[in-house]
């Protein structure tokens, strides 16, 4: 789960991490009032749950009230990677003389939280990682030791030369790690972390992502969630035990298991088709789940064919077949369906399907090819 910059910085503030003075605004008038209150110059920043706001023109420095008004007009309502900008953050303009990157995330390899820091702040860290990997210092954190003072100091000495900054940095790293643990974060990032003209560290930007699996123990964090329409659909699907991600293609997929679902999409692509979604119906096979899944697929107007690929393991194919037949009895489906059942009780399942006068295919490759053929017929 992601939250907005201003929300991340509110959390930072609660842990006494210095952030810019700033006000969230929903209209141009509010932006002007905020600029008045904070004093010029101000920075107007789109608050959307997508990266690359700067490049998309979603961040503007305003040195005059007119510029602030203009920035607000331009940014509010703008579309950034499919997200409409509904609010902006108006932040005091700060003079600074250097920019750093600090981020905490999970490191799969050391199986621990890792702190990444770089003197090349202000740019996207992925770009630094690609172009100049040595510029990123990485410190895996021993889970037993935590971010102890000496360890935080060690990192700070690696990043800063001025001792006052070392002390501020060590303090900051300890707080960031505490935030990470306290909130079950998956990412806590300050980019850029700047050194102001007064020699103080200040978080100019802030980013936090959270571990979805741990949200249940953080209702306060969960309450910050602002899903888009697509994400709402995904969340609804999740409530029904389905994992659904909408894509751009026209072949609706229903598969059990995430890996098999991805592989099914791959096979469709391989034969020149375009999957309309990722849909993992998981291990159970109740009729209701199949109905929910079918509804999801049919609610996407781009879907011209449905391809069902089930590998019965613990899931029995006859159960899925029963579910599918019940589903079809209860709903109107006016597009073709390609069905492939394999694994546990596949024969029984296939018989149920063919008794219902639906065609079946024998392999995943065949299913994909047939689905593509049917889509091409429709078009």
């Amino acid at each position, binding site marked *: 789960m992601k939250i907005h910059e201003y929300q991340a910085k509110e959390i930072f503030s609660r842990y006494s991490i210095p952030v810019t003075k700033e006000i969230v605004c929903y209209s141009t008038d509010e932006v002007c009032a905020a600029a008045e209150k904070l004093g010029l110059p101000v920075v107007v920043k789109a608050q959307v749950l997508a*990266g690359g706001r700067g490049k998309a023109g979603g961040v503007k420095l305003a040195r005059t009230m007119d510029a602030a008004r203009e920035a607000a007009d331009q940014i509010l309502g703008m579309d950034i990677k499919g997200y409409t900008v509904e609010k902006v953050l108006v932040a005091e303009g700060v003079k600074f003389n250097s920019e750093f990157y600090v981020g905490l995330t*999970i490191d*799969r*390899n050391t*199986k*621990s*939280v890792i702190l990444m820091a770089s003197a090349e702040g202000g740019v*996207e860290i*992925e770009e630094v*990682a*690609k172009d100049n990997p040595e510029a990123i210092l990485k410190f895996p954190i021993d*889970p*037993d030791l935590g971010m102890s003072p000496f360890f935080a100091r060690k990192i700070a000495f690696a990043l800063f030369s001025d001792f006052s900054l070392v002390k501020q940095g060590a303090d900051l790293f300890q707080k960031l790690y505490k935030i990470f*643990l306290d909130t*079950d974060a*998956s990412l806590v990032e300050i980019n850029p972390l700047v050194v102001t003209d007064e020699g103080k560290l200040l978080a100019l930007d802030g980013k936090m992502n959270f*571990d*979805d*699996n*741990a949200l*249940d*123990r953080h209702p306060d964090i969960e309450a910050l969630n602002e899903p888009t329409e697509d994400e709402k659909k995904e969340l609804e699907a999740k409530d029904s035990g389905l*994992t659904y*991600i909408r*894509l751009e293609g026209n072949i609706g997929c229903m*598969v*059990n*298991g*995430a*890996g*098999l*679902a*991805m*592989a099914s*999409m*791959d*096979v*469709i*692509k*391989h034969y020149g088709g375009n*999957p309309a979604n*990722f849909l*993992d119906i998981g*291990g159970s096979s109740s009729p209701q789940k199949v109905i929910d899944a079918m509804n999801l697929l049919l609610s996407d107007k781009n879907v011209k064919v449905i391809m069902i690929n089930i*590998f*019965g*393991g*613990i899931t029995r194919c006859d159960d899925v077949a029963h579910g599918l037949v019940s589903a079809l009895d209860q709903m109107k489906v006016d597009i073709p369906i390609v069905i492939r059942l*394999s*694994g*546990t009780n596949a024969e029984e399942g296939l018989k149920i399907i063919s008794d219902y006068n639906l065609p079946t295919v024998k*392999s*995943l*490759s065949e299913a994909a090819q047939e689905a593509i053929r049917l889509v091409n017929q429709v078009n």
Partner: protein
Amino acid sequence: MSILVNKNTKLVVQGMTGRDGSFHTAKMKEYGTNIVAGVSPGKGGQNVNGIPVFNTVEDAVKTTGANTSIIFVPAPLAGDAIMEAGDAGVELVICISEGVPTLDMVKATNYLKKKGVKLIGANCPGLITPDEALVGILPGNIFKKGNVGLMSRSGTLTYLMVSLLTQAGLGQSTCVGIGGDPVAGLYYQELLQMFQDDPETEAIVLIGEIGGDAEERAAQFIKDHVTKPVVAFIAGQSAPPGKRMGHAGAIISSGSGTAEEKIAAFEAIGVPVARLPIEIPLLIKKALKID
């Protein structure tokens, strides 16, 4: 021979009396796995389908000599259950539970490492050594004893691969589902080393996914340490960036973790990568010079 589980496996099932636990315990027992104990706090002293139930893993291990534990408890309790197993002295823990908070896994994997206990999962289908022990939720009937070792980050895709292998007459030594979570137990490297050291395993199938750099690291490890033939498949070749495909790991972040990169890493060291699942048995046969 085989790796991790075999006829000597003495299994304790944590959460045996729950819905999933009881269902899969029956399946594993039916397959022939030697299940010696179940654990369910408050139900100690009961006997479920001939299996004695204990209040704690420690009691179960002390009484039955269990050396392996499989975990079916709800995700919020799974991290603690893993540590309980580690504390009780089993050698191997398999955690099936899905949705375990990552920081719980950071704590649990660190604890088990200190105790010298191996972990598979969480959020994994478990593992099987055909005809010896099924420890997980894999469908036993698709497996066949043989000499192909298999490791995978996904469940049903594994089943598909195994069926293809079995249909092609290629049996398996051990098949391990390592799970798709950000922090998990044994990973490609450790399993590659075990298969390399296992005399029964003659070829290895590695099924990877988009996201992270585990496959790239595995490729480096193969280059340095594995002499047996390895073939690979990467799921998510068609996945768009920035979307999580079910597994927490299956997400492409900008410019890394793509299928292309992973495929390139394997091919650079001479590990053939199947573009379609159906090609896997062909690649194995070619590697083993069969037909």
